């Protein structure tokens, strides 16, 4: 490459060239340049509406994963603190708690919606 002397003499340029030389020698720099153009194409293709859709999917996935992890963590912690397994009466009492009934409704409704999509 013919570079003006003042550029090729800069420490930054020399350091960069030293890193790139093995890639140039083995012809692999082409892959890097191709990858850069692919990234650039993707950026060109992205528009506000696509970003909005991707962001919504991100939120849905992270929020569901977060809620599931929270549920497991809290349930496990509460069961573990009880020491021995709950009695049948304790289970029935639990079934009647407002939060349990809301949870059971979510599970049943989930099955219902799965069925609706079959």
């Amino acid at each position, binding site marked *: 490459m013919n570079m003006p002397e003042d550029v090729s003499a800069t420490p930054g340029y020399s350091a960069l060239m030293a890193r790139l030389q093995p890639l140039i020698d083995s012809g692999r720099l082409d892959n890097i340049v191709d990858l850069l153009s692919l990234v650039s194409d993707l*950026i060109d293709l*992205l528009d*506000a509406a696509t*970003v*909005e859709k*991707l*962001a*919504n*999917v*991100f*939120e849905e996935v*992270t*929020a569901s994963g*977060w809620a599931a992890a*929270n*549920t497991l963590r*809290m349930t496990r*912690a509460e069961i573990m*603190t009880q020491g021995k397994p709950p009695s049948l009466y304790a289970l029935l009492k639990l079934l009647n708690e407002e939060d349990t009934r809301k949870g059971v409704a979510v599970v049943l409704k989930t099955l219902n919606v799965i069925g609706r999509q079959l």
Partner: protein
Amino acid sequence: MLANQLARKLYPEILRGEVSILLLSDCPDHYYKPAFMYVAFNLYFKEELKRPERSLLRPEIGFQVEKVTRFDFAGQRLKTSSGKPFSYDFLVIATGCLPAPERIEGLQEAGDHFYQYDPARQLAQRLSTIEKGRIFISVSFPQTPNVPHQCGIAPVETTLMLDDYLRRRGVRDKVEIIYTYPTTAQLLRNCLFLQRPTGEILPAIFEQKDIHYQRGFTLSRVDPDAKIAYSAEDEAQPFDILMATPPIRAVDAVLECGVSQAQNDEGWLPTNHETLQVYGLENVYVIGDTVDLPVSKAGGSCHNQAPVIANNIAAEIRLGKPVSVYDGRVQAVAQMGLNAGMPLWYDYSRDVQPTPPTKIGGLLRNGFNRGLYWAVARGML
């Protein structure tokens, strides 16, 4: 954000039943406030910018919709409008700030702003119908020395968005935009932005877009009938739309708690720059817009303050004293026009080093607004 981080940090104590966390808010929903700016350009629906607060909190955290009306710091209690008292061992005040256009004569009647949903909708109505005339942009700073207005970059962001928006509508050549800045902007005088490096690049950006600009206009009075804005520097400027960054203040309960030393009854709490404790009070911290710190009243500040407070409360419980220090860091991606974005960061000792706005920056900002923010609020990022 902070409650979630606290719940994670103090999880062993929560499991042992030694610690419980309760969040009180006067509103069942959590609003992503920066989106109000987009509402002004018809880019966001109200339904998209809020989530139920409960859905953003880990289940270990209690949540009650209660408006705090009085802080009893000596008794470590809060009074609420329902009459229910709440006691605490540690308290974090995160009640934000409110726009107060009524503090400038005539501004409430004749001015517009985008710092709340309803005013932003009204501004959207005006911006979407103006065919010709003059849009005058003014910025009011708190009178408390070295305290900024909410989200320092917002007036620049909205000025550039306005330019793009009017071009899209095909009326830009008939509408004059004039961006003004007050004589005193925190520690700077006669500038266009509250930090010098950014202020210095603004003239070139504005000139390229035919946006007029003026330093030294401190809005002091508005004549709603004549549609004239007057400045403390004795100047009069006519307008068709006055897009203002209005004065701000803390919420009533904070104003009335008697702890603030801020001027003009603005209510900012005296904040330890490093630990984020409130000076003069035991076991009380403050985060976000209610602080009297010199850094931007921005979500990007809360993001960096939250881990410091979570660590300090955990350390007070476990070691008897706070251990973490806030370095004033704020980060954000500024919306520079409708499509471009500029990532930025700064702290107590370093100003923002502006970089050229890019399309990638714009996509990143859009992605943050629409999705990433909610992961941040949940304490995941």
